[in-house]
Structures are given as structure tokens and as C-alpha cells.
């Protein structure tokens, strides 16, 4: 009787060992398969933390709106504070309550400093002038719009071009530098 019990115990032990061995083998087999077949993450996912179809953002200071941003699409780059904007439209509010409208094909918003870059068919419009250029930078702290490539201004009685421009939203003054050329629509004839 004792022999039969020992035999049964021995069989049980061997079965248990075999079961554990099989389990371990299956586990390692599954892990090896996992390593071979890595699910490819979409390209944007590896670069962008977040992709938004329609972005709206407002910047305020002391309770006053400084600018409002709309963009057709936005991508927040992984590990950086750069948000890549498609077809951005920005309305800047000046100290005197005027508005300056900016549109462009592309833009980049620094989410920490609120500085912006706009490029491609950049147009800046206030109640008197429209300015066109290919590249423009907005410095949020100083509230300056700057362009270091040729700019073209029209509106009011003036049509002009210049090499560079700095527009101060605080003082509502624009400085155009370098080869300022253009036309003024007014009569100047003298007897």
C-alpha cells in the first residue's frame, strides 16, 4: 500500500515539474515573438505628443486679452515647447484697444514664452495699412512684430516696400529700415 502511495506522490511531483517547465517555455516563446514583432507607432505619434484638429488659444495679461490665436491644426512637438501651427490667424490687441490681424500659411508658438513665428504669405492688417511679407516674428514680452525680410505696405495714401520692419504694439509705431521706396497718393504740384 505504501509503495502505491509513494508511486502516486512521485507521479504527482513529476507532473507538477513538467507543467511548470511547459509554462516557462511558453512564456519565453511568447516574449521572443513579442520582441520580433514591434507594433510600428505612427510617425506623428513618435514626433508629436498631441495633435489638435482646431486650435484656439488666448493670451491675457493683467486681465486684458493680448492676442487670440486660431489655427486649422496644431502639433505639439515631443520634448519641446514648440507648437507647430497650420494656417494660423492671430488678432493682437494694442494698448489703445485697436486690433492688428495676422494670417499666414504656417506658424510656430512657443508655449512657454508665447513668442510666435509666422511664415508663408504673411499678412498683417490694422485699420489703415496691410503689410505683406514672407516671415515674421512676434516677441510676446516686448510686444513687437519683427521681420528681417522685405516687407510691402499698402493702404491709406501709401504703397511702400522696405528691407526690414519692427512694429511696436505698445506704442502703435512701426519702423521700416533699408531701401524704403514707394508711392504716396497726394497732389504736391507747386506753382
Amino acid at each position, binding site marked *: 500500500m505504501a509503495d502505491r502511495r509513494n508511486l502516486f506522490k512521485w507521479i504527482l511531483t513529476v507532473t507538477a515539474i513538467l507543467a511548470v517547465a511547459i509554462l516557462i517555455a511558453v512564456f519565453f516563446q511568447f516574449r521572443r515573438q513579442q520582441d520580433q514583432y514591434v507594433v510600428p507607432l505612427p510617425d506623428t505619434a513618435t514626433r508629436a505628443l498631441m495633435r489638435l484638429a482646431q486650435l484656439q488659444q488666448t493670451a491675457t495679461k493683467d486681465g486684458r486679452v493680448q492676442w487670440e490665436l486660431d489655427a486649422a491644426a496644431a502639433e505639439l512637438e515631443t520634448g519641446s515647447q514648440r507648437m507647430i501651427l497650420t494656417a494660423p490667424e492671430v488678432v493682437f490687441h494694442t494698448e*489703445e484697444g485697436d486690433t492688428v490681424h495676422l494670417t499666414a500659411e504656417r506658424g510656430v508658438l512657443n508655449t512657454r514664452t508665447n513668442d510666435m513665428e509666422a511664415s508663408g504669405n504673411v499678412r498683417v492688417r490694422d485699420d*489703415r495699412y496691410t503689410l505683406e511679407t514672407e516671415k515674421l516674428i512676434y516677441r510676446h514680452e516686448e510686444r513687437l512684430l519683427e521681420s528681417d525680410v522685405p516687407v510691402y505696405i499698402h493702404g491709406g*495714401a*501709401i504703397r511702400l516696400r522696405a528691407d526690414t520692419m519692427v512694429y511696436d504694439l505698445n506704442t502703435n509705431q512701426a519702423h521700416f529700415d533699408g531701401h524704403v*521706396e514707394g508711392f504716396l497718393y497726394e497732389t504736391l*504740384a507747386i*506753382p
Partner: protein
Amino acid sequence: EAPASEATDEPIEITADRLISDSTARTAEFVGNVRAVQGQTVIDADRLKIHYRESGGGQEGVDTESVESIEATGRVRITIDNRVAVSDKAVYTTIDKKLVLTGPESRITSGKDTISGSRITFFRETGQLEIVGDDGNQVKATIHSEESGLN
């Protein structure tokens, strides 16, 4: 040579080193090697400041503001046909079409004829010319009989 009336339809062509536009003050100031040309009229100066007024349409469907006055300062030289006006400052006001030259060296030269004073005013509507002197700078004129005169 384009007659004066036709010339006035042309825009003023301006070149300069710099432009400062102030939307609040409604001014646009050209700075550095400034030259403004319209037909037979040429203004050269160190600075040329344009003052706008709100209402009133300009030419070519330009929107609701137009030029109120143009102020040239610093080595001002105005060439009109064959006459040359020189002064420290010149202000042209569009409402009355008047050009006023001021400064001790204000002078107009036409051929060999010259007239100078501390204040010279052109009245475009009437074609009149008014020259005023002051204590240290009386009106002086040099007119050669065969010349056509200054205006």
C-alpha cells in the same frame, strides 16, 4: 514736359533710408536721403513727415484718410521746373495748397534771378509768391531784366 495739371495726377514717388509710421499720431516720417518726386516737382531733404487726417477719400479708391500736410526738414531743396527753392524747413498743406519755406537761408533761384528771406510762401491756387524778411535777414532780390521772373 508733362503740364502741371497732368503731373498732379501722378502719385508722389518717395525713397528714403527709413520710415517711422505712428498710427496713433497719424504720421509717417521718412528719414535719411529722402527724395519725393511728382511730375516736375522734386523735394530732397533729410526728413519728410506726412500728417494724415481721418476723413476724405484719396485718389484711386484709397480708403478714408488722406494727407493733411507734408513737412520737410534739414537741407531742404525743392526743384520745380527750372526753379530751385532752398531752406531749412518746408511745409506743404493740402487744404489750401500752400508751401511755406522757413529758415534764415530760404532762397529761390530761377536761372540767374534769386530772391531770399526768412519766410517764403507759394500760393498754388493763385500762383502768388510772398517773401518776408526779419531784422537780421531782410528780403534780398537779384533780378536780371532779360529773365522770365520767379513765378
